[in-house]
């Protein structure tokens, strides 16, 4: 039975054979290796049976030199269904149209949901999204990726601390977190302020506690700058007997102590360097990517740039919730310029100084300020300039140290 299995998919034909002893024609077919099934004798000189669609040509060839007459009766199976379907133009257009409609609707934003923020901010977000072109009914291709939307939203709406943008099918979910100004927590426990770095005190502004150092004092890391013990400090120093149990008053020392600190840095700058620069000339190409294959849609010629930087922006096409293996790709080809440059020793030193300062200010944070720098030593060795720098900075060196208030 294996031979006739699957005949529905390949298609089969019922043929009626007329002539003297029609069954012998089927015997002839069977001998040639054509599978025949459901053979019936309908009349003395007529026989009908099923053969595969693929074998029809050979059957016609076999018939040629015989006196039999063949009539094709029923055409069954998938190929005939298909051709019958294709013949009905209206049905075909309707099917294509409906698929296109689904494709179209699957690539449209249906809903934008904003959660987690109060009404007024929600309103603002929706407004902002509108200005980006994100609203229900918008075409998905014209929209940036969720990551970029996230970034833009946080930048454009100052009240937002964070926003999560998630695209699920045709819906955009936005979850916002509002910035809440938190009152600075009042430290209850008594504490000292101690120095974190060595430096010379430049400025002191103490709101609570007793300053232990004064401007222009040199401090080492760990030195108490502002004491949290208000009275009794001197007594403990002077008389050691009994006066200790005088009530000591503890406070949470608070203040801002700015000190001049110094750093030494070493940077190495090469005299020769390569740069890559985008000249601004660019061309765009459009592709439709099917699996691994890219079909160019627009922009066929390669621009005659020496070096090209390629950036592909891919937008997948959805069908319902599934992503099709088909995507629309926009490729930007930008002209690149390689340059090999040389700089003088002086330039190199300047760049080195800048670099060291930038690195240091990154390390120290935004509150610190770099006041001055001095080149201590510079050497040139195998095309590189090595610079030793001395940098002065001003920064807050106070750190909280809780006081142990007895055991």
């Amino acid at each position, binding site marked *: *039975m294996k*031979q*006739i299995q699957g005949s529905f998919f390949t298609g089969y034909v019922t043929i009626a054979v007329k002539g003297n*002893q029609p*069954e*012998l024609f*089927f*015997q002839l*077919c*069977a*001998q040639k*290796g054509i*599978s*025949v*099934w*459901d*053979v*019936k*004798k309908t009349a*003395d000189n007529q*026989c009908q*049976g099923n053969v595969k669609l693929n074998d029809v040509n050979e059957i016609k060839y076999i018939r040629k030199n015989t006196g039999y007459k063949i009539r094709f009766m029923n055409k069954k199976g998938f190929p005939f269904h298909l051709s019958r379907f294709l013949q009905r133009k209206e049905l075909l257009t309707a099917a294509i149209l409906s698929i296109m409609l689904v494709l179209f609707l699957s690539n449209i934003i249906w809903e934008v949901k904003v959660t987690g923020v109060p009404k007024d901010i929600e309103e603002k977000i929706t407004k902002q999204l509108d200005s980006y072109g994100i609203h229900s009914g918008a075409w998905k291709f014209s929209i940036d990726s969720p990551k970029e939307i996230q970034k833009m939203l946080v930048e454009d709406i100052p009240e937002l601390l964070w926003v999560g943008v998630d695209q699920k099918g045709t819906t955009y979910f936005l979850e916002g977190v509002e910035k809440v100004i938190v009152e600075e927590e009042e430290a209850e426990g008594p504490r000292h302020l101690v120095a974190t770095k060595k430096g010379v005190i430049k400025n002191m502004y103490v709101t609570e506690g007793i300053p232990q150092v004064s401007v222009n004092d040199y401090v080492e890391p760990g030195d108490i700058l502002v004491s949290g013990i208000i009275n009794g400090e001197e007594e403990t120093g002077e008389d050691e007997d009994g006066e200790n149990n005088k009530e000591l008053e503890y406070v949470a020392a608070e203040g801002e102590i700015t000190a001049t600190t110094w750093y030494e840095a070493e940077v190495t700058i090469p005299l020769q360097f390569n740069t890559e620069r985008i000249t601004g000339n660019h061309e765009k190409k459009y592709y439709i990517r099917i699996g691994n294959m890219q079909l160019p849609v627009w922009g066929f010629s390669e621009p005659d740039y020496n070096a090209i930087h390629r950036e592909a922006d891919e937008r997948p096409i959805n069908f319902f919730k599934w992503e099709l293996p088909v995507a629309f790709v926009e490729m930007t080809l930008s002209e690149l310029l390689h340059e090999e440059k040389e700089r003088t020793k002086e330039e190199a030193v300047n760049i080195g100084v800048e670099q060291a300062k930038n690195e240091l200010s990154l390390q120290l944070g935004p509150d610190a300020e770099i006041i001055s720098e001095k080149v201590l030593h510079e050497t040139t060795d195998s095309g590189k300039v090595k610079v030793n720098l001395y940098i002065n900075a001003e920064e807050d060196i106070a750190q909280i140290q809780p006081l142990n208030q007895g055991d």
Partner: protein
Amino acid sequence: MKNWQQGLKPWLIKYLALPSDVVLELPRITIVGDLHVYIENHKGLITYSETELKLKSNKGYIRVMGSSFVLKMMLPEEILLEGIIKDVKFIPD
């Protein structure tokens, strides 16, 4: 030569237990109730009608009688007959 082969074959079947239909090239007929007759190794169809099927075999003919016959499947050396079977007869040359 021919005689020698003819003598050898039954011996092969008897002592080596080889299937007889393969060695002797005889038709193998499987009958399921009175519904199906499955004939393998035939040498060609001679006549077929609603009530009769006649096949050539190595030694003579095989004749199946009955009613409402349909050839469910026809392959070069196999035939599956469906219908109401009355008798299967071997007719020597």
